[in-house]
Each structure stands twice: as C-alpha cells, then as structure tokens.
C-alpha cells in the first residue's frame, strides 16, 4: 500500500500524485494533520491546504505556499518535503514542537493546480494560471501580480500575452481569491512565506513601491539570520532584501498584500539555482534544496514564535 513513508521525496510528481500524498498524510496522521479545501481553481480543481495543528481554536498561524508559478517544480517538491519534515519533527525537535504547540501551520503545496497540471500535460514552461482572457487569444494571469497591493502600477503588464500579466482586476484569479478569503477569515496569521524559484533570494516587502516597510530593519535582520542558517548546510549562497531593491519593481505581489494585511513576517523565497538549470533543476537537487530551505524557514518560524504581536 502507498504510504508517506514510501513516497519518493527525491523525485518530481504530477498533480494527482501530490494530491494523493496530501490525502495520505491526513489519513496517516489525523492527530496532527488535516486537509482543507479553500476553493476551486479556474478549471474546477480543488485547492487543497494542509493544516498542522495540535489543538486550540483559531490559534495564531504560519502560512507557507509553494508552486504559485507552476513551472517552478522544485518548490512543489520542497512543499512535500516540508510536510513530511513537520510530522517527523513534532515531538522530536524541541523547537518545531514548541512552534506547533503554540501555532498552527498551513501549507499549500500546489497553489496553481491548473498551471501545474498544464506543465505536466502540455507545456513544461507554463508559469501563469489558465484563465481565459476575454478579447485575447492569450491564456492566463500571473498569480503573483494579481493581488490587491499596488495592483496595476508599474511592475506588471496589462498585456494578456505577457508572462507578468496582472489580470483584469485584483483577485480576478480564483487561486488568489481563495487565499485572500482564507487569510481574511482566519484573521490570526502571523507569518506568510510564499516560495518561488529560481535565483537564491530571500525577499520581504515591498515590491510595488520603494517606500520602506515599517518593520524593514526587523525583516532584514530575520532574513539575514535565515539565509545564514540556510547556507550552513550546503553552503548555498542567498542574497536578501526588499523585492524592489533586490530584484525589480513588481506590483500586485503576494507578500506586499499580506504585509499590508498586518502580517508582519511576510517573506518570499527564490530557491535554487542561480542559473545553471533554472526552472529545470535536476531532481537530484530536490532534497538538498528542500532541507536547506527548511533551516531558513525554521528561523522565520522561531522568530515569529518568539516575537508575538
């Protein structure tokens, strides 16, 4: 019988395999894990989120998502690794145990299911959602330009054929709207980490404006510690900073919106590599990438635990 113990974390998987994995996890560890559906994608696929909880009601929470850009396969693969790491560490690792004794963790592994399915079936290089754009032959919206934070200002495109097309209006994409509604209804999320690839960066708000985040000094210090922890395992070098100063102006981005919702600890990772394989990172690098990223995530989660607000 298939089990989370026999799931191959060192390989890429398609949507059905990852959704099976999510179901298995909830079935094998019901005391720690449950799965929730926060909505449906444009093409009607369920949007599944894993909830790791040791009790309580509406506890403060930490959100982690991977795969919002569907072709960034190492991120969804890392998400599966994180899920297993959380259940293996609870009760074993004192730090993770204390995090889970006080916080819930929400993990969305396939944040763009339509796009991800499309990378397996028709176009490995697909990045956006699969929504139809009226008046255009071009398909899809960049789900990391569709959030209501600086939506429509410079840093995204109004051209439906562009890879950074912002969409007809903020939250037009059901994949984005589902998270927006969840975050608003939960109301007690204290950290939000959205994981992309590639370039080896750890970024914090803002992307749509050069205005500094009110907590910029603290976010910078946390990012510094996180990239040091990440590098300690395999020596993988990361840069860190605000989105606009580290890469470019990007409007309508996820963590700009979450930060403006009051979620102070809002970060984006850009995982391996810096440009040997890019989005086609060999499967042999999944585990090294995921395990080093986990160390960076732990720094962010520990800081969140130790600095209630």
């Amino acid at each position: 019988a298939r089990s989370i113990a026999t799931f191959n974390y060192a390989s890429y998987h398609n949507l059905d395999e990852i959704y099976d994995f999510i179901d298995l996890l909830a079935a094998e560890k019901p005391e720690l894990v449950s799965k929730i559906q926060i909505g449906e994608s444009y093409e009607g696929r369920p949007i599944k989120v894993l909830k790791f909880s040791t009790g309580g009601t509406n506890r403060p929470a930490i959100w982690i998502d991977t795969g919002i850009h569907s072709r960034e396969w190492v991120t969804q693969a890392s998400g599966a690794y994180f899920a297993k790491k959380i259940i293996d560490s609870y009760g074993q690792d004192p730090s993770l145990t204390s995090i889970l004794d006080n916080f819930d963790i929400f993990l969305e592994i396939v944040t763009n299911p339509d796009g991800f399915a499309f990378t397996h079936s028709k176009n490995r290089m697909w990045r956006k959602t699969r929504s139809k754009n009226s008046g255009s032959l071009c398909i899809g919206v960049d789900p990391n330009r569709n959030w209501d934070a600086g939506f429509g200002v410079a840093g995204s495109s109004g051209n439906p054929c562009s890879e950074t097309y912002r969409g007809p209006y903020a939250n037009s994409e059901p994949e984005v709207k589902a998270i927006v509604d969840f975050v608003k209804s939960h109301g007690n999320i204290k950290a939000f980490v959205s994981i992309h690839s590639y370039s080896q960066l750890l970024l914090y708000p803002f992307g749509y404006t050069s205005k500094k985040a009110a907590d910029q000094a603290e976010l910078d210090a946390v990012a510094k510690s996180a990239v040091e922890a990440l590098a300690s395992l395999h020596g993988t070098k990361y840069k860190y900073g605000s989105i606009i100063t580290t890469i470019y102006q990007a409007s309508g981005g996820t963590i700009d919106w979450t930060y403006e919702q009051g979620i102070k600890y809002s970060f984006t990772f850009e995982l391996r590599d810096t440009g040997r394989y890019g989005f086609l990172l060999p499967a042999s690098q999944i585990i090294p990438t995921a395990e080093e990223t986990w160390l960076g995530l732990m720094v962010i989660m520990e800081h969140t635990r130790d600095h209630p607000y």
Partner: protein
Amino acid sequence: TETFVGHQVLRIFAADEFQVEQVKGLEDLEHLQLDFWREPIHPEASIDVRVPFHSLQAVKVFLESNSIRYGIMIEDVQSLVDEEKLSMSHNSR
C-alpha cells in the same frame, strides 16, 4: 504538447542601462516568442531568456551586432525536459 527541441536559454550580461533597454525591447517582439526566465532589470543582474530555435539566429545576431555579451545557459531545453520525464517515469515504476 509543446516541445522545446533546439530551444536555448541564453544568459545575457548587459553592460549598462542602454543595453538593458535594448534587451527589454526584444520582449515586445512577440513573433520571437521569447520567454524571460529572469527579466532585464539592471546591469548588475544577468538576464536569462529561453529562445525558440526559429528565433535563435536573429537574437544572437542582434546581441552580437550590439556588442551585448551573452552565454548559453542551456544548450537544448528539450533534452533537460526529457531527462526529467525519464526520471519521473523511473520513480513511478
């Protein structure tokens, strides 16, 4: 299914803002079907772009005639995609 035989990913090193703008200009030429993996932003950051086979010659001539330095990051995208598929099928077996 989209295939990527002969597609290459070029890593472009713009020497200054002017060259960044020149590369950005390529983005608007939709017939080239360029796929920027890393956007042209500023001279310090390299630009990665997947170039379909049918546009390769034109793009390389443009870069070379404008003395814009570039290297080949991925010789043939399809071969990496095939490798990935193979490793996934081994796994599922």
